[in-house]
């Protein structure tokens, strides 16, 4: 009896393993990603301030697995600014972890941590191989976080998104609606769990757009609340006046692809619904980039980017960038980039300041 059972058991096990192997081969875990390393030189025009630095700007590691024909799981782990926990450099961040359901081209759903669709660049701002830039258009440049209030300009994380497109003649109507946390996230373990929203408000937003082979345009909006209880405000404002204020971001994007010529542009306007006479809050961002495909591998561009921030009485500052650059597809998965940017910084608050700086960058971007 025992002699019969063992071969049958072994055969069943082999069959089971073969079936499991076939399933694994069909729905295998894909590991891939990209990185961008750069060499930068910056110089303040009026003062003897100058620096050179190598930097691993970005390394993103993706894990992706198809759970079924219409279901996919995706994880994006991001390492920024030559990350090393040992040396206390850079940032390690879980940027995305979602599962998507692809019912049809009109209706797709993503559940889990994700970057919401807003204007043209928000979703792909950190996908450096997709962009010709080394320094990205201001509010999309993570390294400017200490100069510009980036999370005020853009919705940064959502947890549910319904999106897709509806074909209409030669056009496609894009739609996306998302819900996520407001940015009032607890960072101090003394006040409870970190990483969770401390207010009852949600982030709600979306984008509606049209595109054809030549043109892509859209409007975006998001709504959430700014918690003034935690904002840095002067002592003249009492605790009672520090109520949450509604924050509405409005955006528009226009991109053109006319043969070898490319144009992309966006605006973002952030409005705050506050009736406090002491406070004046508003933020605006504009960017335009014109590009030309000089050859199959070589792309050249020039751009003009502006942010205008008013958070009176605390801050009033403008940043203007004029930039030119080149991107060269060296191999299938390797791009070389060069960029020059002249940055003008002007502030009247917290203290009057005018500065002009030149930035020169070289970078290599690799998909693996």
């Amino acid at each position, binding site marked *: 009896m025992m002699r019969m059972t063992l071969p049958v058991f072994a055969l069943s096990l082999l069959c089971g393993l073969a079936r499991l192997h076939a399933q694994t081969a069909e729905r295998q875990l894909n590991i891939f990603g990209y990185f961008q390393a750069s060499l930068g030189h910056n110089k303040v025009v009026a003062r003897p301030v100058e620096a050179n630095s190598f930097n691993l700007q970005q390394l993103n590691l993706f894990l992706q697995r198809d759970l079924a*024909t219409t279901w996919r799981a995706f994880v994006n782990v991001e390492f920024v600014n030559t990350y090393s926990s040992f040396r206390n450099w850079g940032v390690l961040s879980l940027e995305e972890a979602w599962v998507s359901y*692809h019912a049809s081209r009109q209706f797709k759903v993503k559940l889990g941590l994700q970057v919401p669709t807003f204007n043209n660049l928000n*979703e792909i701002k950190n996908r450096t191989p997709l962009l010709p830039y080394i320094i990205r258009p201001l509010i999309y440049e993570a390294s400017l976080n200490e100069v510009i209030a980036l999370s005020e300009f853009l919705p940064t994380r959502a947890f549910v998104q319904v999106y897709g497109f509806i074909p209409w003649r*030669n056009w496609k109507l894009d739609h996306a609606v998302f819900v996520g946390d407001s940015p009032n996230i607890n960072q101090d373990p003394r006040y409870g769990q970190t990483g969770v929203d401390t207010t009852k408000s949600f982030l709600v937003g979306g984008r509606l757009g049209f595109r054809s082979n030549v043109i892509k345009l859209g409007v975006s909006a998001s709504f959430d609340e700014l918690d003034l209880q935690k904002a840095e405000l002067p002592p003249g404002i009492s605790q009672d006046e520090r109520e949450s204020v509604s924050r509405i971001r409005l955006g528009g994007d226009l991109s053109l692809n006319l043969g070898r010529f490319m144009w992309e542009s966006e605006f973002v306007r952030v409005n705050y619904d506050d009736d406090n006479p002491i406070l004046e809050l508003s933020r605006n961002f504009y960017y335009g980039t014109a590009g030309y495909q000089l050859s199959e591998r070589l792309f050249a561009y020039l751009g003009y980017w502006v942010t205008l921030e008013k958070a009176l009485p605390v801050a009033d500052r403008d940043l203007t960038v004029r930039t030119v650059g080149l991107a060269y597809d060296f191999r299938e998965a390797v791009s070389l980039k060069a960029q020059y940017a002249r940055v003008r910084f002007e502030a009247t608050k917290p203290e009057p300041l005018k500065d002009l700086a030149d930035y020169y960058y070289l970078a290599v971007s690799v998909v693996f």
Partner: protein
Amino acid sequence: MKNAVIVIGLWLLASAGAAGAQIVVIVHKEVPADSLSHAQLLDFYSGEVKRWSDKTPVVIFDLKPQSDAKDLFYKFLGKSPSRMKSIWLKKLLMGEGEPPQALASEEEMVRKVAATRGAIGFISRAKIQAGVKAVLTIAGAEP
């Protein structure tokens, strides 16, 4: 002068040959479509549509080496290879899809399309064989 006439004559002959070149878009024989439009082809090759009407996943193939067939196909799509590459790269990095497998020759393209359910590819008209069906003929560069 005589040499110049011969050179111009040869160039005209070569141009006429290229203008007469035809490629066909082929699909696996069980694909539920007998013809495709330019817009549908572009939707498949840019990863916008990922399934056939019977829900079979669309598997797209591309050609690795530069060839007349590849040039004609991309001209018909109205996208340069670099533009298509950036579209596929975006799909890949957004977790929305994978770039097509690039095959070494048209002969391999026929074999792969014949052997893969839901497959779509393109070859010179002369290379067509049993096991695949042609759903679109492309002659010249205009859609």
